[in-house]
Each structure stands twice: as structure tokens, then as C-alpha cells.
């Protein structure tokens, strides 16, 4: 009994100390974000002070004003295919357009990836087709491939497809990246064969079987993939850097990176840009936090 008691104490001690350390670490993890937001409201004197102001003495909006007055772009543009007719939205600060571009890119990439990956993953898991192993091996090998590897050929390909400097040049390679297929294959393994057989006996064709039997079962997996793709494409700085050039076509990450290159030490302005880039996605994250964690966990269950 005494032994147990002592052990209990030691465990509690360990636990308390660990929690304290982790709390400190958590503070350190949150700090950069705090620093971005705080920095964006500081005066330039405070920014360049050798003694940092942990809490700004004077809050200013100068940095945002500077950010928004830099460049302008039409809020949206729409071109009717095969004609010369196009419509452009009102002129807004370019940063707003960048944000919109980024949202569009992330959402489209997410939807396309989910559709294609769900179908392909289902086929890989449930269809015993010729060449399945080859395709799957290719997918596994290509999964971890950094995009820099195919930088030059991809750039040339996009140029000849006339997709260079359009958001599609960023979206398509994301959709092509096979991680989603892999993930959905792992999920689809769990679809019970008997249910599919039963549907088939009821006269359902292949599409209907997928649609009515498989899809509802892998829905949580699709949710996980959606979240994963959304964050990944939001942060996929490299493809954006290579493929986009016009001010109106930039994404927010790229816009901030350019801001950084032009005004390397104007940290206030850069932090204003960084806040603009980070806050929307953080808000999304906080709102959907529960789904995020659930989605991420889902991905691993079968991984």
C-alpha cells in the first residue's frame, strides 16, 4: 500500500511538471502568431526597437493602410469563353483579391481532389482490375515526391497548355498529387464486400453501388481529405511561386512573400500582410476545430 502511494506521488509529480513544461511550450508555439498580430499594429519605431515592446504602447493602423494602398486589382474577373466579353469587378486593394484567389484555389482544389480521390480510392480498394498493383505502387512512390523535382517540366507543360499564370496551374498539380487517392483507398478497404454484393444482386450498376453503398461509408474519410487538402493547398507556396506572376493572379502567401522581398525590413507592413494571410484560415480552423481534429484522426485510423 505504501509502495503504491509513493508511486502515485511520483506519477503526479511527473504529470504536474510535464504539464507546466508543456504549457510553457504551448506559449512558445502561440507566440509567433501573437507576434504577427501585435507586430502589425506597431509603429515603425516600436518595430525596430532593440528592446521589443511585448504589448504595443501605441496601436496604429498605418501598416494596414500601407498594405491596402499599395496596389489595386479588380475584385473578380470573368471571361465568357470563346468571346471577347469579360466582366471585371470593382477595384479593390490587391491584397483582398489575393485572399479571394486563395480561397477559390483552395476550395476548387479541395472539391476536385475529393471527387477524384474518392472514386480512385474506391476502385483501388474494391476492384480487382489488371494493373492495380502497378498503379498503386506508382501512387505510393509518388506520394512523398516534392514538387520541386518536376519543377521545370511542369512549368513547360503549363506554358504549352497556356495555363501558366492562371490559378489552374496551381490547382491541377495539387489534384494530381496522389496522397488523397492513397488515403481514400485505405478508407475504402473498410467497405464490407457483402453490402456491395447485395447491392449488385439487387441490380445496382457499378456507379450506383459506389454511390449508394460506398460513398456514405467513406464520407468521414472524404471530410478528412477535404480538410487536409484545404490546408495543404492554402500553404502550397512553391507551386504558386512558380506558376503565378500577375499582381491580380497572386495568392495571399505569394503576395506576402513579394511584400517581404520588396520591403525586407519593414516588419510592420509584412506582419500586416501575414495577419491577413493567417487570420482567415485560423478563424476557419477555430470554427471547425472539432471537425479538423476528427478529420485528421480519421485519416490515421486506417493509415
Amino acid at each position: 500500500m505504501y509502495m503504491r502511494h509513493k508511486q502515485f506521488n511520483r506519477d503526479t509529480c511527473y504529470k504536474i511538471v510535464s504539464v507546466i513544461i508543456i504549457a510553457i511550450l504551448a506559449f512558445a508555439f502561440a507566440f509567433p502568431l501573437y507576434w504577427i498580430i501585435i507586430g502589425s499594429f506597431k509603429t515603425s519605431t516600436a518595430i525596430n526597437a532593440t528592446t521589443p515592446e511585448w504589448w504595443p504602447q501605441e496601436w496604429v493602423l498605418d501598416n494596414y493602410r500601407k498594405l491596402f494602398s499599395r496596389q489595386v486589382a479588380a475584385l473578380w474577373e470573368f471571361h465568357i469563353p470563346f468571346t471577347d466579353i469579360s466582366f471585371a469587378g470593382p477595384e479593390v486593394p490587391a491584397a483582398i483579391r489575393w485572399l479571394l484567389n486563395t480561397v477559390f484555389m483552395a476550395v476548387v482544389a479541395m472539391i476536385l481532389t475529393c471527387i477524384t480521390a474518392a472514386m480512385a480510392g474506391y476502385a483501388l480498394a474494391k476492384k480487382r482490375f489488371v494493373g492495380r498493383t502497378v498503379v498503386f505502387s506508382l501512387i505510393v512512390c509518388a506520394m512523398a515526391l516534392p514538387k520541386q523535382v518536376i519543377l521545370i517540366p511542369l512549368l513547360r507543360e503549363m506554358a504549352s497548355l497556356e495555363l501558366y499564370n492562371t490559378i489552374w496551374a496551381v490547382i491541377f498539380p495539387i489534384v494530381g498529387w496522389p496522397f488523397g487517392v492513397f488515403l481514400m483507398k485505405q478508407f475504402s478497404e473498410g467497405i464490407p464486400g457483402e453490402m456491395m454484393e447485395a447491392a449488385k444482386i439487387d441490380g445496382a450498376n457499378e456507379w450506383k453501388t459506389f454511390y449508394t453503398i460506398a460513398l456514405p461509408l467513406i464520407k468521414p474519410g472524404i471530410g478528412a481529405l477535404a480538410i487536409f487538402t484545404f490546408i495543404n493547398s492554402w500553404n502550397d507556396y512553391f507551386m504558386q511561386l512558380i506558376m503565378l506572376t500577375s499582381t491580380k493572379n497572386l495568392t495571399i502567401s505569394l503576395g506576402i512573400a513579394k511584400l517581404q522581398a520588396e520591403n525586407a525590413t519593414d516588419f510592420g507592413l509584412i506582419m500586416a500582410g501575414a495577419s491577413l494571410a493567417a487570420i482567415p484560415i485560423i478563424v476557419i480552423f477555430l470554427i471547425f476545430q472539432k471537425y479538423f481534429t476528427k478529420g485528421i484522426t480519421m485519416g490515421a485510423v486506417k493509415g
Partner: protein
Amino acid sequence: MAKSNSMSKALVRRETIAGYAFMLPSLIFFLGFVIYPMVQCVFTSLFDATMNREDIFIGFANYVELFQDKVFLGALKNTVIIVVVSVPVTCIFSLWVSSVIYDLAGPACSAFRCIFYLPVVTGSVAVAVVWKWMFNNYYGIFNYIGTNTGLIEKNINWLGDEKFALGCIILILLTTSVGQPIVLYVSALNNVDQSLVEAAEVDGATKFQCFWKIKWPQIMPTTLYILVITTINSFQCFALIQLLTSGGPNHSTDTIMYYIYYNAFKLYRYGYGNAMGVVLAIIIALLSAAQFKMAESK
């Protein structure tokens, strides 16, 4: 026997058609924007290719040069260091954090989870620029804290010093990659069969034994998954390097990923860059295959 054989042949045909029909949308993108460029990459790596000039066939000369190129070998080394350091550290760190927080009260646990996940959602560019500021030699917060607490004697030029730059990059990479593993481990630990743990505790097992003998085997699949995603993640640190150090100082933070970009758009050596890409792709494919085999066997 014969009948069933022909049946299965028809079945195979049907399955194949259906299989590829379902694969088609995905295959278009995968073949079009991953495999086709990869084939191009292999092909062009045999040429001396540069901007606005016909490519000249040079066989394996690019590859030969590659393995004599000090900078490339350095970049290869750095890439390996990043992966070898960041993958285990991320895994161990996140396992430790999760093991401490998973049985805390609900709100506390999810608050921690949330905070550790923040750098992931903040976005690599925003993260890079704020760290650049914090590491700044003159008005960075690290030097301020360091010199004021006496940890460092005088200002250190973190990103401008060969001794520290790569370490700094790895540190930033770590902060942006532990979020997901922590979420995963927390849920995996919560799913561990509690009755087994209790039984072991009754038998007098220490916490550590309990963890090692009972929990560890049960969270093994999660660990493998984390290994895979962390490895992928470690290869994706281009943004940090491009924005923070451009591979410097003195190539000490060059990775193959960055060096390819550098060769392409600073030195105009497309063929050479592609040869590097091929080498990297082979390394990664082998690594993925090995990890996958490991996962299969478990």
C-alpha cells in the same frame, strides 16, 4: 473448373473496365501533372538544356557531374539531416506531449491540441516571415532574450551564421509539423483498451512499463502513419529556405529541393536541375517503399 475460369475472365474484364472508369478522373490529373512531367524530367536530365536554346544530348554527363558537385552533395547531406533530425524528434516530442495531455480534462486537452496545431494553419509564408523577424540579428527577439538573460554573450546572426542556420530552419519546421501528430496521438491514446491498462496496473506495472508494454503496441499504426506524413512534410520545407536563407550562408541550408530551383532560375541549368530531381525522386521512392513495406508487415 473450365467454367469458373471463363467466368472469372469475364469478371476480370468487367472489374478492369469498372476499375479504370473509376480511376479515370484521378488518373488524368495524376498522369498529366505528376507522371508525365516526371518522365519529361528523366528524359531532359540526359540533355544540356538551358533557356531558349536547343537541348544538346549529353548522356549521363549531368549525373556524373552531380556526384562531383560539392554543393549538390552538401545539399543532399542537408536534406538527409533535416529528415533524419526532424522526423524522430517530431514523433517523440508529439508522443510525449500527447501522453501528458490526453487524459487531462476535456477543455484543457483540446486547448493544448489547438495551440500546437496553430502553426500548421498559420501558413508557411506567414510563419517564415515572423521567424525571420524573431531571428533578426539586430531587432530580433531571440537576441534580445539571449543577451538579456546572459544565455548568449553577444548578438548571434542566427540565419546568417553557418553554425546555426540549418538548426534554425529545423526548429521552425518542427513547430509547423508537430500539430498533426499530437492530434493523432491524443486520439490513439484515448482509444487504447483501458481494461488492459488497468489489469497491468493491478499486476503492479509502473506507468512506464504500462506505456511500453500495452499502449505502445496499440498505437503502432498511428506511429507509422505519422512517420509517413512527417517524412513528406520534411521534404516540403522549400518555403522556409527560399524565404529565410536562400540556401545560404555558404550553402549551409541548401536542400536538393532548393538547389533544383536555384539551378533552374539562377543558373539556367535545366538539364542539370532535372538530373537532381531524378536522384531525389529515386531516394524518396525507395524511402516511401520501405516505409510502406514496414507498415504492411505490421
